[in-house]
């Protein structure tokens, strides 16, 4: 299941993980939006193109490919392995403006953190999606509405809100 801050969405991207049976990466037949392992990105010319990153990728190494990439997908091997949060934050700091996707068995309680770190969408394996439907993810967004940090969702931090003395909306 793929979802973003509006709920479940269609996934136009084709994730390709197997190299072609014959020839090199450059011989892959690509049609439509294709999501390829990051290691292959330099070897193909295609659009729209996405890169799938293992979570030990050095974000700076992705920087030179930003112009070619419409989507970067970061792998979360487990919901408890939080490296992807920092990779996303760093990619945004480095100037990536395309779509950022979190890919793996994440949990709804992490949705707000993911968005605040710069992700746009989350891809869940069927096992997790079954127990945690899109409505549950959206509901979690409303559970803690304030943060002490300025995130990437346009939310002012509590510290900034104090200075602005904006009244709180009724809970």
């Amino acid at each position, binding site marked *: 299941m793929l979802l973003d801050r509006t709920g479940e969405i269609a996934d136009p991207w084709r994730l390709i993980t197997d190299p072609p049976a014959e020839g090199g990466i450059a011989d892959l037949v690509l049609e439509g939006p294709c999501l390829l392992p990051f290691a292959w990105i330099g070897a193909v010319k295609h659009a729209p193109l996405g890169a799938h990153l293992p979570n030990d990728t050095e*974000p700076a190494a992705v920087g030179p490919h930003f112009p070619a990439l419409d989507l970067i997908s970061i792998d979360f091997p487990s*919901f*408890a*392995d*939080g*490296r992807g*949060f*920092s*990779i996303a*934050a*760093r990619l945004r*700091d*480095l100037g990536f403006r395309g779509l950022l996707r979190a890919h793996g068995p994440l*949990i709804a*309680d*992490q949705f*707000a*953190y*993911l968005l*605040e*770190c710069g992700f746009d969408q989350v891809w869940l394996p069927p096992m997790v999606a079954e*127990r*945690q439907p899109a409505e*549950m993810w959206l509901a*979690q967004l409303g*559970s*803690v*509405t*304030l*943060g*002490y*940090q*300025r*995130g990437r969702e346009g939310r002012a931090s*509590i*510290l*900034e*809100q*104090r*200075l602005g003395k904006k009244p*709180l909306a009724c*809970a």
Partner: protein
Amino acid sequence: MYRYDEFDHRFVRERVGQFRDQVDRRLKGELTEEEFKPLRLMNGLYLQLHAYMLRVAIPYGTLSGRQMRMLAHIAETYDRGYGHFTTRQNIQYNWPKLKDVADILDDLASVEMHAIQTSGNCIRNTTSDPYAGVAPEEIEDPRITAEVIRQWSSLHPEFTFLGRKFKIAVTGSEHDRAAIKVHDIGIQIRRNAAGETGYRILAGGGQGRTPMIGQELRAFLPKADLLPYLEAALRIYNLHGRRDNKFKARIKILVHELGIEEYGRQVEEEFARLDRAAIAAPSAEVARIAAYFAPPDLAPRDPGSLARAKAAHPGFAAWVEQNTYPHRVPGHVAATVSLKPVGGAPGDATADQMRAIADLAERYSRDEMRVTHEQNIVLPHVAEADLFAVYRGLQGAGIDAPNLGLITDIIACPGLDYCGLATARSIPVAQAISTRFADPARQREIGPLAIKISGCINACGHHHVGNIGILGLDKAGVESYQITLGGDATETAALGERTGRGFGFEEVPEVVEKIVDTYLAAREPRETFLQTYRRVGMEPFKEALYAA
């Protein structure tokens, strides 16, 4: 003291609501136990040997009478009438029921408290100097910085699923009472050559199974850069800290493997790249927080009948001598309530004792208390003229032990009596030692001596930095206690050295006695145990313990 505003209140209320929902989803099967575990841990809820354990945060150890009364109420209503103050300035309840936990969190929220991030692989309660705002030599109250960090680290979107727990401590004095050298990040408030106040930052310290002393990451960090710098330091750790082995996942291993220079280089590079203005606490906000820590309005006081009371009551005189610390305002002291009665469980307090301390704090200490990492409670602002009344109050509650910093002021983890990780008992060892050395005159004769006991290699009882450290292990089903000497948690931090093979449970008091006798025989006038040990080394102690 810091007070919640509407934002803090709403944040904590929403967090409690979220936890209620998480428990509900777990019970419905929407969350697996594996998924629920880090969520409950981030709310301080452990599953222990016999029951759940709830750890409540006491930010930088500071609390008011109203808050202490709530802790007493929780102990009575949801637990067995007592609580355990911890080495991280928190309190633990050992017998709460899962169904009650959200209600307990609601009760805590009503007095501006919570259990957020008291466990789990996230940034934990920031600890500090129990004499903050009291110590005459202090540069600045470290709790202002600790509160800024508390807010920044609360549910930080990027750092809530770290490789391992992350502990930060702050001191505002040169003399370190916050053990900053054995924290993941230690912060010392200092002045630079130009007289500006800023921070010295240490990284990579820690205890546990691979103890390490923190190293200097930045000699001087301007105050305004604190949060961006911490963000950079945490990001490098989160990206590159090891995830393959839980026992090698703390920042100390990363710093050790990269070297402090390389780790520092990466942090500085990240720091330079960050949008500092978006991360730093606005100066007006820091000033708002600082105002809560303005020193209480204490005028110098005449000690009144203090001298007469001391002369008439030798027990009181001994308590004043041992358990008070000079205050920057003449005629006042910080008085420490020892939670180490002879034969007691270190750090435990009953609901009645908590209320007695709260009463005294309200009457005599500007409604303020501090929990220390030595598991005692400080009344920070007591007039000398009021000390006898305070002492009488403590006597009535059975918490008048005049043993601060002495051999019976033992730190001990809960150990095998409660903890699911423990390999041996800790509390009974502490009880046996304190009973052995019960005589107050003998304790004073021995002088400052910190014994710290852990019931497993995770070192929650800080044994690595005990002058005498005791580590309880399991050797083929039998408890075996390894002894270390020379550990120190202060600015002269050192890790203890092992004496040799371990000892049985019953032998430990005798072993401590031999160590003490060796010290007393070797010491020069006015030398402390640690000074003697540093001068004479391990040999004479080994000789006393192992020579047939």
